[in-house]
């Protein structure tokens, strides 16, 4: 069996691949000690693992310890998305602390990519902070926002400034759902501008935990005018990609 582990800033994802089959997968919080957490998650499979490939921001400490090799999240998400969606040409990954868009050539190789700048604008962390400010549970932030009557335009992309903008909107008794929709639209706007830099081609796959957010999915596909595909476990695509590379190595 082959293991792919994606050590992200918010979650650690692990996929165990046995031949063509996903034997098992796990998603756990990164917590304060990503190294310990990674080891715990790998432990039950380590004995039977032929090869472990790590990706995510924690990939380098993994290489020093238990991983046989590392690949970037870009390559990992591309490989994972392509396996689950064989016609995929565009991957959007909205992760905890960064977001990226990847364009693939016909054969599935990474042709170009864009990543957000250093700030949290357009990332999962941004949505998380905003959900909290608005008093929503992260899990139903998307659904609640989708139920809005009108979107309130959020001008600031910066998490810190957007938060104070949201607070002053709440003080004006603006409906939190409307603010929520505005926030989702601002994330999608940021992603779409990155997408236009690399070019948009079907099929488009949304990867990462934010893929579970209905409002992001809907707003994104409306703004692009294309269908956006999401796997039932969107957060494991990176780890799956790493496992595929482990198998192909």
């Amino acid at each position, binding site marked *: 069996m082959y293991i792919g582990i994606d050590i992200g800033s918010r979650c650690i994802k692990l996929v165990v691949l046995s031949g063509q089959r996903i034997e098992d997968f796990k998603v756990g919080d990164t917590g304060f000690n990503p190294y310990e957490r990674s080891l715990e998650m790998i432990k039950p499979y380590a004995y039977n693992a032929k090869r472990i490939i790590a990706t995510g*921001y924690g990939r380098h400490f993994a290489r020093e310890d238990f991983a046989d*090799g590392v*690949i*970037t*999240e*870009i*390559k990992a998400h591309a490989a994972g998305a392509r396996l689950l969606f064989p016609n995929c040409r565009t991957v959007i990954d909205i992760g905890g602390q*960064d977001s990226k868009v990847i364009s693939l050539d016909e054969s599935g*190789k*990474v*042709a*170009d*990519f864009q*990543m957000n*700048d*250093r700030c949290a604008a357009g990332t999962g962390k941004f949505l998380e902070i905003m959900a909290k400010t608005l008093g929503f549970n992260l899990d139903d932030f998307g659904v609640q926002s989708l139920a809005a009557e009108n979107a309130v335009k959020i001008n600031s992309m910066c998490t810190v400034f957007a938060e104070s903008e949201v607070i002053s909107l709440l003080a004006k008794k603006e409906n939190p759902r409307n603010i929520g929709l505005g926030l989702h639209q601002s994330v999608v706007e940021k992603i779409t501008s990155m997408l236009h830099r690399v070019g948009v081609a079907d099929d488009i796959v949304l990867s990462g935990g934010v893929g579970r957010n209905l409002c992001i999915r809907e707003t994104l596909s409306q703004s692009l005018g294309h269908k956006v595909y999401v796997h039932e476990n969107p957060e494991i695509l990176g780890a799956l990609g790493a496992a595929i*590379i482990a198998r*192909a*190595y």
Partner: protein
Amino acid sequence: MSDYREMWKELGLDLEAHDQLMAVIPQVYGDVYLSQKNRPEGMSYLDFVMSEIHGLRIKELNDLRASGRKVVGTFCLYIPEEIVLAAGAACVGICGGADWGSAEAEKILPRNLCPLIKSFMGFKLTKVCPYFESSDVIVGETTCDGKKKTYEVLGEYANVYVMHTPQTKDESSRRLWLDEVEKFKGKMEELTGKEIDLVALVKGIATVNAKRAALKRLNEARKVDPVPISGKDALLIQQVAFYDDPARFTEMVNKISGELEKRIADGIGVVKKGTPRILVSGCPMAIPNWKLHHLVESAGAVIVAEEACIGHRYFRDMVSESGTEAKEKLSAIADRYMKLDCACFTPNKERLDNILNLVKDYNVDGVIHYSLQFCDPFTVEYVSVEKAVKDAGIPVLKIETDYSMEDAGQLSTRIEAFLETIKESQGVTL
């Protein structure tokens, strides 16, 4: 070091703050430079220069001033070094490559400003740059809005003279620039009390041409695969070109080049043959800004050329040595500087041509475009650079950053992914 402390104190440095800076530099230098494997032996000269960067070289400048000569501080390769040398003065680059004193600078300057400008202002305000404090005059230029307006502010703290650099390359701009070069000669004569005659100009031109030729020779060696010197080491040499005594520096660089040529003959490289070869293009990297080179080379690629002011733009063009009158010499100097292809020019097609030539001559696998945050000329000119490089079939990655290390993780991911695509396109897996 105790004798230096006395000297630093006399120069007016803030000793306590300076001690803190001096404690950081060796640590960073150790991590970035001394950890490299298989360095050319000649790099020991650069190690020595770096260990004495605020010591011996400052003492030399001090001695020079004690003998009645002057020190001229600059921030830009537009300032004609030939004329400074012809006036018997020393020309030094001013510190602007580290996130030092930015908090002080931000008390005066806007936050959303180029890190290089904030850095030099920070170094001045916190009084930790001995080159700043040793300079009898700081010569600025009107290359970009940020610098242009900051020199007005800097004028409150230092003796500043500003050269009016043109922004186009037509005939009227050339006349303007020649006029500026002549005025600069007058300024240098006034500063030093020495008349700049034909012989002095001939010598000044010869000295700087020799320095540029030495750097050209060094960079020739980087065309070879496997490359005999790391990008980091080559960058350091090109950075020190702005500080060191020109004649000694030229001699040492030629010595290193000799060693590199021997390495090439013996087939010795600093990395394996076939290592991805990167051209870095964009904003200047002033000492000790080694951030991008360190990230790229740690990710398993090698940088083979810098299309930048601290790089090819500095040594590519020579001043013509023909002509037997002082006036002709000044005109030759002006002509040489008019060839510079800084992003402050419009239009600036020469830069695109030069990038594509470097890509070809250095057998480059990928171009990384480097710009400092808030640098309008380079970030906007990237639009044309990207198109030109992509049209030539070469992958290009844009990096926009400052001097802090907080984005190092993200930058590494981008750089590694860029290298993955290069390797994949060459048929190498993992």
